């Protein structure tokens, strides 16, 4: 028999131990948990420290130097950060990064949620096909997506303008990626296009974990579609939505490939984000013959700080909602 109060409560088998024995047993249990905890995490942790943590520390150190990639790195303390604060391009890139991240995260999550719910309601066999089609944009790297969409956005021979012309909407034709007013929006759309399948998939997997019995019970009680969604689906998806939002934020702050391939941060920095700017400083020709790896690393540290803050904020919010 199951209780319906706690959705997935179980009746334990076997008899409960007496109190005295219980405490000792609980102590031993706690200890074996601790050992297991550390052991389970150990391999991941060791690999992380060696091959991720150390390079990150090195990058942080580089941000305090001036280095062209050969010869010795010259220690200059916080000069790179001061320079960043005064750099008008960096300021603009900060703004664009924030806008990009906010818009992509919100839209990806919401659309992903809607799609997951819709797909969940479509009948079985077609479901896999639809899910695959919706996921396909995410199957290629953003470099490939960028190349494909740049061709679509091409003002002269691209499909979008040709389509607009064919249906008589010439007035809407733009030089999409060359026009300040449309470039950022176009890039954002492509980013969402590529990422929404992933959001949908994660949320869809999360929906599978929700007890169907809850929906049945709710239907019996007369709850409508929206109420079931609001009171069962959304709360049940909390940890998963948290993931999707976190990923959106992290990927947004770090974004590089999609923007660089489509606009290189142009025209005139209209789509410049931290990711593209730091690439240009490190590997591009902007700094002429001398790469500026120190300055570029400073940007990566700032991105990292932004990501840490975002994750902490998201974790705090989730904890608050649990209480």
């Amino acid at each position, binding site marked *: 028999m199951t209780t319906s109060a706690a959705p997935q409560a179980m009746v334990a088998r*076997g008899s409960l131990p007496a109190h005295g024995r219980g405490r000792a047993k609980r102590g031993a249990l706690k200890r074996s948990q601790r050992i297991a905890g550390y052991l389970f*995490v150990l391999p991941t942790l060791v690999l992380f420290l060696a091959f991720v943590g150390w390079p990150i520390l090195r990058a942080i150190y580089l941000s305090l130097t001036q280095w062209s990639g050969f010869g010795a790195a010259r220690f200059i303390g916080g000069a790179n950060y001061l320079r960043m604060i005064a750099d008008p391009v960096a300021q603009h890139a900060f703004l664009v990064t924030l806008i990009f991240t906010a818009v992509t995260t919100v839209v990806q999550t919401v659309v992903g949620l809607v*799609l997951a719910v819709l797909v969940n309601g479509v009948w079985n066999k077609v479901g896999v096909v639809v899910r695959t089609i919706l996921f396909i944009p995410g199957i290629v790297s953003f470099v490939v997506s960028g190349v494909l969409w740049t061709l679509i956005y091409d003002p002269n021979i691209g499909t979008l303008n040709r389509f607009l012309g064919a249906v008589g909407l010439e007035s809407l034709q733009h030089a999409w990626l060359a026009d300040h007013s449309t470039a950022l929006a176009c890039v954002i759309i492509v980013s969402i296009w590529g990422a929404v399948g992933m959001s949908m998939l994660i949320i869809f*997997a999360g929906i599978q974990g929700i007890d169907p019995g809850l*929906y049945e019970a709710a239907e019996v009680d007369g709850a409508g579609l929206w109420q079931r969604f609001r009171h069962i689906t959304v709360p049940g998806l909390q940890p998963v939505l948290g993931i999707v939002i976190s990923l959106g934020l992290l990927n947004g702050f*770090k974004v590089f490939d999609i923007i660089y391939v489509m606009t290189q941060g142009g025209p005139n920095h209209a789509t410049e984000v931290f990711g593209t700017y730091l690439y240009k400083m490190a*590997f591009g020709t902007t700094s002429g013959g001398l790469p500026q790896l120190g300055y570029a690393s400073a940007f990566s540290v700032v991105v990292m700080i932004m990501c840490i803050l975002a994750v902490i904020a998201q974790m705090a919010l989730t904890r608050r909602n649990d209480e």
Partner: protein
Amino acid sequence: MTALTATTTPVRPLTPATPRRRHFPVGKTVVSFVLLPFCVVMIFPFIWMVLTSIRDQNTVFGGSFIPTSINFHGYATAWTSIGFPLHFWNSLWITTVTVLGVSLLAALSGYAFAKLDFPLKNVLYLLLLTTLMMPATALIIPLYLELKAFGLLDNQLGLLILYISSSAPFSMFLMRAFFETLPDALVEAARVDGAGELRIFWQVLLPLARPGIATVVIFQFLQTWNEFLMANTILQNPDRLPLQPVLFSLMGQYATDWPALTAGLTLSIIPVVVVYVRMQNQFVAGMTLGAVK
């Protein structure tokens, strides 16, 4: 008793046990109206891609959308001129081993963070998450220098270790969330039964996290299969390269052989789609309850 309100398609996970409800055809039509145009937008660039791969190089731009004459020169070029089979195989085994390694590590550590209690848990979690927080372009030179110090440069094993180390935290992130949706009571009851922690993980919880593992497998396969920067930089001998760096070399600065490039891309997508579709079988609703009832 309130009467059942007429509804559009109910939001309901797919459970074979639940009897089918009759719903109005309106529901399906509405869903189709929303989903169909969406699907078209989603795959349009790929339709272009596949069409381009089967046409002449001279008709890629300026020709009609549907090619008037079809040939497979692009596929022939892609297959022969860049050593497609070799690099495809490199990608395949490197990705497979990475996925398996990452899945194991992510499941273990994700479970630990979700279900076990130990000091400094949150600190360690946040620490591991910093993996996701730095742009790859900023890390590539430090990574290169690191592998050089270990003597693992120009070595596929080195690339593997790098992939697993840098990918495990993300998958751990996913697995933790999935394990969190599973009831603590299961773990506690198994403890009461006297099972060791490893056993509880391996025999009780892990089988129930199928959707989570399937998601991890999909994402990890995808991410590793498409990875470019690290493979391109760490491996020097062209024979050791996986597929992506080699495919991208078809993209010239001024001129690109579009049919060959799109043909190569089309071929390279196939394994990912296969993995995706196979993993879909794992998304069965009520898995957690089904096993428990």
